[in-house]
């Protein structure tokens, strides 16, 4: 029966929302089970933990008339029932069958529609029947279904209030757009108030207007934080697919890997999350393919045969930190140095940290097996670019023989960014406040020229100070020395940027760049200011990177 003819066909989306997380949980459990079996652990609790979910998926799929999903869930239930019995052959073949079935179930449910092809499901059922047929006892006793009726663990989320409404995410985007207009209009109103005050001087009505503008701002910011909270999703929605992927790469590479995931309930804006999957996938497969050693090599090096891969997320001072770390061999400094030299980069003076940063340089990361998984395409430089485009940073630490760790720091939301507005050659620019360390009056005598670069003392360190006109390419000759500089930071990098005026702090609504215009190297987006002018948002990470690479 097709879901279209099914009386509950309209509930397809609800079916996916409920069943997909269950299927992912089952898939993860099978990956874990395979790992335990290889380590000699029977994994009975893991096996028992999936029966309830499989049964629910089977029932839901049957109710929806989605036969392929029902059949796969049913076959897995039978397989688990058989494997739970003493004397069952819990070998690689059984494990592979479970993992394949779990993945198939996730794929089927994820792309569920009335016309789902039964081909893959039929093939899988045939494989399960074949397996149960040749396995001892199985054919005689038949699969034990009663096993599946016993549910052992309550599921998280069962007690959540029923007052939840599903909303199309595009509506939230539309609401954000409207809020953005409200914020722009508020800025216009505040600007108008200041002009009126200058013209007519203080009076009672203007005092009241000031109060009203102020409370409007408070209302808007309350609306903003509510809306932002609505847009947040736990990172587990992206992490969910990783265990199976890590397991697949580990298989292909002949590695043994345990993936440990923590902090899955950390929240991020959906817009950030949507673009985070690919870079994280890359970092994880990279760690499996190149970070972790083959089991034999690990044992010889005095480590457990099974490599440990950690994926951790946590909220850290208003941002979200995500860390991918392994206990493998660490970055190969000799190989990085050789590659860099081959590309004409002078690494003689580079210290370890600088050498590590080179893995993010295009050409170096994609060149060969130093840092990328053969055949996976995306280089570390591309992963780093995606993170930077999201307003994030990526750092690497590594110790030879002990492993590597990539740490991402990401903004919780993308859409509204508190920024410092500055003026350069009569144009206004926004610098995200998360990248502003300080604004300083530039006394001419404190800035020295060394190798044609301005250098100044800042908090006890020497930092470079660049002219904003030159960095932004405004093309205008610098008439008078610019009176201020903004100290920008990203990760460990810092640099001063000389500007004409500091306008003030403002919440700005990020608008994307027109893709047809290409992407200027130093600008990440645009915004509209209170007076209706368009301002470019500086891509601080890229500006600082450009400085580090000497252009």
């Amino acid at each position, binding site marked *: 029966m097709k879901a279209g003819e099914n*009386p*509950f066909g*309209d*509930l397809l989306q*609800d*079916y996916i929302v*409920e*069943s997909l997380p269950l299927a992912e949980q089952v898939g993860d459990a099978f990956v874990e089970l395979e790992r335990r079996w290889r380590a000699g652990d029977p994994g009975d609790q893991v096996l028992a933990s999936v029966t*309830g979910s499989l*049964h*629910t998926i*089977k*029932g*839901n799929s*049957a*109710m*929806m*008339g989605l036969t392929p999903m029902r059949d796969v869930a*049913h076959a897995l239930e039978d397989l688990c029932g058989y494997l739970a019995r003493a004397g069952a052959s819990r070998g690689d073949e059984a494990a592979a069958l479970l993992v394949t079935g779990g993945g198939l179930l996730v794929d089927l449910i994820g792309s569920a529609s009335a016309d789902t092809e039964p081909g893959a499901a039929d093939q899988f059922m045939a494989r399960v029947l074949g397996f149960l047929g040749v396995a001892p006892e199985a054919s005689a006793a038949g699969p034990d*279904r*009663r096993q*599946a*009726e*016993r*549910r*052992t*663990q*309550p*599921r998280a989320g*069962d*007690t959540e209030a*029923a007052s939840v409404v599903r909303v199309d995410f595009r509506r939230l985007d539309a609401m954000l757009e409207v809020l953005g207009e409200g914020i722009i209009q508020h800025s216009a109103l505040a600007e108008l108030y200041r002009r009126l005050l200058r013209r007519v001087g203080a009076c009672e009505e203007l005092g009241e207007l000031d109060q009203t503008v102020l409370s409007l701002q408070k209302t808007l910011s309350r609306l903003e934080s509510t809306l932002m909270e609505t847009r947040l999703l736990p990172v587990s929605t992206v992490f969910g697919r990783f265990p199976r992927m890590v397991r697949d790469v580990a298989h292909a590479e002949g590695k043994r890997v345990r993936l440990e995931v923590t902090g899955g309930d950390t929240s991020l804006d959906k817009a950030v999350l949507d673009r985070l999957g690919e870079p994280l996938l890359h970092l994880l497969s990279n760690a499996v393919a190149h970070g972790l050693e083959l089991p034999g090599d690990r044992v010889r090096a005095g480590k457990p045969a099974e490599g440990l891969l950690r994926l951790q997320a946590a909220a850290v001072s208003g941002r979200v930190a995500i860390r991918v770390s392994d206990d493998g061999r660490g970055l190969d400094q000799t190989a990085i140095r050789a590659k860099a030299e081959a590309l004409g980069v002078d690494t003689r003076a580079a210290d370890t940290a600088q050498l590590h940063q080179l893995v993010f340089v295009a050409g170096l990361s994609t060149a060969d097996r130093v840092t990328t998984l053969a055949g996976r395409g995306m280089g570390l430089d591309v992963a780093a670019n995606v993170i930077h485009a999201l307003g994030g940073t990526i750092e690497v630490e590594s110790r030879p023989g002990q492993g590597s760790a990539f740490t991402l720091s990401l903004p919780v939301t993308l859409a509204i960014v508190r920024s410092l507005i500055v003026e350069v050659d009569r144009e206004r620019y926004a610098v995200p406040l998360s990248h502003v360390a300080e604004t300083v009056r530039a006394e001419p005598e404190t800035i020295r020229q060394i190798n044609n670069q301005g250098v100044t003392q800042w908090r006890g360190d020497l930092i470079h100070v660049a002219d904003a006109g030159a960095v932004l390419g405004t093309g205008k000759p610098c008439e008078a020395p610019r009176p201020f500089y903004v100290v920008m930071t990203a990760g460990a990098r810092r640099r001063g940027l000389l500007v004409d005026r500091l306008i003030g702090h403002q919440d700005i609504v990020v608008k994307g760049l027109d893709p047809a215009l290409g992407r200027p190297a130093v600008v990440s987006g645009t915004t509209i200011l209170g007076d209706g002018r368009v301002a470019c948002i500086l891509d601080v990470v890229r500006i600082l990177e450009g400085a580090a690479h000497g252009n």
Partner: protein
Amino acid sequence: MSESFLVIDDSKLLHQMYRLIFSQGDLAGSTIHYATNGREGYGLLAAHPDLTLVFLDLNMPEMNGLEVLARARAERLHSHVPIVLVTTESSEDDEARGLAVGAWDYLRKPFQPADIQRLVRRARELRRGRGAA
């Protein structure tokens, strides 16, 4: 007179299916109480002595359907309220055990709206018969 029903099932999807079924025909306007596990279901059953019919899923966390049924019957809790055991391709053993512990009938997933309507009609007849007696 508004009728009330109790649905005990750990699947929110199933709740919505019941909601859909109970919004149609002469069932529209009836009150339905929902529980997502056996324990909660038992509590709701205890709190509502005047239910027309109870739909009790077999496979649930925190007291499965058979346990709820066994406890309700052992404590003689509203023994006049008919309880339907809902199963999914389960063995006939389970259904037989359910009936032995005191299920009024059983219903297999996948079911159709018509199956529910039929069960409700029978439950009403049962009620009328009892009222007349």
